């Protein structure tokens, strides 16, 4: 029987390591592009202040990037370590985008990031600029392939179950790549990263402005961040809406849970702003905007948005069909030449995953009782209220970012960058907000997909490795402990780097013939501060 403690601990470990990893990734995505923009301005105008800015943000980027690499390698290995049945069951499909991520993206990013830091005085201006752009593109291609892999978990297209190998296999790789869910999620996720980078730059620049330090660099950085951030914030909300729309097609239950819509509403459904549960767990009290829900999810006024209870009834039908598929599969496994069973399986294989939901209750799923079928159907409902609230936090922040960057953009275009102290202070304290929105987003994407690890194909509890609880307690505590210590150190180092500010005279390029005197500098500004 399946050890649910091991499953739960495996989920905690994956959630913890993934959410830690995604503290660093969005900043890498956003900062790398902003550094590339600043360095481009430097190369075009030849003004040293832009090189200074690139180097300053680059120092912070480097510390963050190191944490991203440290936590990233765990992600790639964890599928096999903790989710070995998953790795077997969908590796034929899911492994490919992950491997291509390494080939196309991470190799590019990791190889050139060394030159970004060490190549300044060994390359021409343009040469180094190309390196910086390659790092930024590497990071973003990386996100593309990871989101293709994740998109397939949300909407498993282009693949079919093969009873002879007991796994999902690719039938149409183009469908996996151009999965509508993956494409919407990719742009939504990288845009969120750009927002994160923009807030980071804007917030630290605001701190400099409020303190009256490094004003020239801070002003220029703020202008770049405000414009880049405004474009990104618009994109994140538009593509978030697109993600919601495609989820309505492929993940009805997730959308119903996010909206806490327990019953199918007559079209067009209202959109609930806030709601509170009653004793039965269903909505007891709410404030709603009429029509808006139907418009967001179905983009129409006449299509219905199905409620949780109706979807549970539909899940019961699919579980029954899945039991037939499971029985046929057993017959094929016993006798590969049984063509009759293959025909039955062909008819019902799409519901095999629903049949596997019963594995939680009995081994021989083909003999499940109506009560067990009802329980398995109830299992298809994720926890409604955490999803409902995190979604509203994320969305509220998304709209707030548009307004906030809009304000900054307007003021910057008027030249009012450092004139409003209260706004600068607010900007400083907004620093953590993009992470709240981003981590909420991943929570919704992954927690909202439960009980599935691959939507409709493989239940999460059925996908874990046959490890012991002790294995997981050890690994989970080591990871959390080490990551937390490193995160604290990283934050302390970043504060020191910000306090020290940008360096004054910097290296020369190989093509700066008139400027070949190289100023010797201490290792880092932090060292200088210590004075030792």
């Amino acid at each position, binding site marked *: 029987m399946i050890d649910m403690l091991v499953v739960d601990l495996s989920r905690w470990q994956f959630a913890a390591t993934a959410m830690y990893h995604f503290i660093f990734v969005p900043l890498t995505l956003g900062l790398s592009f902003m550094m590339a923009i600043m360095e481009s301005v430097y190369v075009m105008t030849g003004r040293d202040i832009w090189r200074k800015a690139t180097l300053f943000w680059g120092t912070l980027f480097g510390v963050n990037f190191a944490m991203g690499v440290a936590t990233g390698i765990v992600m790639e290995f964890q599928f096999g370590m903790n989710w070995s049945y998953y790795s077997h069951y969908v590796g034929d499909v899911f492994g490919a985008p992950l491997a291509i991520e390494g080939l196309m993206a991470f*190799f590019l990013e990791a190889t050139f990031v060394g030159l970004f830091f060490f190549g300044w005085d060994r390359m021409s201006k343009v040469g180094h600029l190309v390196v910086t752009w390659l790092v930024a593109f590497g990071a973003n291609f990386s996100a593309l392939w990871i989101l293709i892999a994740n998109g397939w978990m949300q909407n498993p297209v282009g693949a079919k179950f093969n009873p002879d190998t007991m796994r999902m296999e690719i039938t149409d790789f183009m469908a996996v790549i151009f999965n509508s869910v993956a494409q919407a999620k990719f742009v939504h996720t990288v845009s969120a990263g750009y927002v994160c980078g923009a807030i980071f730059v804007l917030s630290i620049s605001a701190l400099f402005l409020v303190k009256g330090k490094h004003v020239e660099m801070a002003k220029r950085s703020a202008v770049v961040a405000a414009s880049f951030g405004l474009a990104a914030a618009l994109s994140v909300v538009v593509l978030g809406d697109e993600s919601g729309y495609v989820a309505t097609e492929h993940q009805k239950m997730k959308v119903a849970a996010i909206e806490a819509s327990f019953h199918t509403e007559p079209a067009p459904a209202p959109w609930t702003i806030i709601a509170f549960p009653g004793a039965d767990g269903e909505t007891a009290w709410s404030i709603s905007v009429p029509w808006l829900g139907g418009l967001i999810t179905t983009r129409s006024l006449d299509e219905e948005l199905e409620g949780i209870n109706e979807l549970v009834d539909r899940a019961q039908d699919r579980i029954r069909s899945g039991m037939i598929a499971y029985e046929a599969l057993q017959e094929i496994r016993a006798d590969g030449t049984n063509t009759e069973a293959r025909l039955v399986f062909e008819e019902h294989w799409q519901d095999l995953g629903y049949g596997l939901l019963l594995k939680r209750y009995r081994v021989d799923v083909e003999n499940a009782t109506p009560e067990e079928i009802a329980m398995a159907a109830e299992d298809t409902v994720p926890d409604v209220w955490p999803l409902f609230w995190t979604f509203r936090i994320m969305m509220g922040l998304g709209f707030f970012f548009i307004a906030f960057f809009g304000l900054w953009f307007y003021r910057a275009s008027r030249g009012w960058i450092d004139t409003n102290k209260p706004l600068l202070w607010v900007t400083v304290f907004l620093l953590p907000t993009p992470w709240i929105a981003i981590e909420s987003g991943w929570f919704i994407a992954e927690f909202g997909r439960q009980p599935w690890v691959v939507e409709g194909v493989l239940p999460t509890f059925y996908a874990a490795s046959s490890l012991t609880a002790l294995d997981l307690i050890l690994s989970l505590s080591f990871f959390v402990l080490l990551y937390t210590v490193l995160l604290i150190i990283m934050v302390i180092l970043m504060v020191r780097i910000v306090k020290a500010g940008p360096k004054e005279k910097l290296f020369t390029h190989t093509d700066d013939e008139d400027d070949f005197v190289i100023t010797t500098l201490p290792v880092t500004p932090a060292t200088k501060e210590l004075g030792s």
Partner: protein
Amino acid sequence: MSSIPLDYETLRLIWWLLLGVLLIGFAIMGGRDLGVGTLLPFVARTDDERRVLLNLVGPTWEGNQVWLVLGGGAIFAAFPPLYAVSFSGFYLAMIVILLALILRPVGFKFRGKVSDTRWRATWDWALFIGGFVPSLIMGVAVGNVLLGAPFHIDDTMRIFYTGNFFQLLMPFALLAGLVSLGMIVTQGATVIAGRTEGPIAARARTYGIWAGLVTIVLFALAGVWVAALNGHVVTSVIDPNAPINPLAKTVDLVPGGWLSNYATYPWMMAAPIIAFAGLLVAVISLRGGLKLVALLGSSAGIFGIVSTAGLSIYPFFLPSSTMPNAGLTLWDASSSHLTLFIMLLATAFFLPIIVLYTGFVFRVMRGPVTSDSLGKNPNAY
């Protein structure tokens, strides 16, 4: 499936070779940095000397580590059951490797940001652990592969591993771990000797010569030991084009069976010969001060040693000690025909580009590293 221009058998063989290329790529490229990390506290004694070593590998180590990431990704994509069994079976060993690897990026980046002596010494040891532990444990894992891992598979292809962490530390496996550590230290020493000057280079030469000699002896010892181990031999007829099913075959244990491939395919003898010759060349060139030849010799030694391990167990990837039939081979642990083909296209396109730009980055960063040269770059570690 008729639209795929290469048959399933050929693709499986190509991917078996490609996996070897990626793992050897990591052992040679990543071995540079792991070796330098392992030698860091011994070869470099002052802060200046340590900074020379860190800045020697600093600009390129991140790219080199991607060979490992890509190796992991390629196992996942091309041989999912192998990925599933090996990573979950060796769970705690993998955790130890990961915890050690996590220390590397932060060690490089954080160390130089504060000039306090204790701070720097702490990160020096972290970087040592980050080099030493993976070098040793990866070899121990290969040793356990040759011994067979205690796992079985049920009809749904679910994997059950019945060993524990301490059972991995068998004498033969520890010997394999030392071979791995020895070859990586040799590699690190040739890198240091090649691009530094003065006392650091002199110490690196000494360490490299000794590590090379010890590796030669241990590798020979492992070869003799393998003759006494049970090798796994497939006794049923293999259909190299069949859908995967590890349980369909029968396997016999034959004492000394891991050496039988060298009788069947005499060309495979090239691998251990290259291993010994490469290491010998490395040792002699280190003594004679031929820096580039030493590095090439050491790299050839790694190529030979890793190839020897892979060829000895062919067609197996991961034999099972408790249910020999369930042992994974390249014929019954691969992805589907179509996936192998798609992945081959992607690899054939990107791998040459990767090699080109890696070469470019190494060329830009070429030349000796001295403590004087570090002052010029405020980004230096």
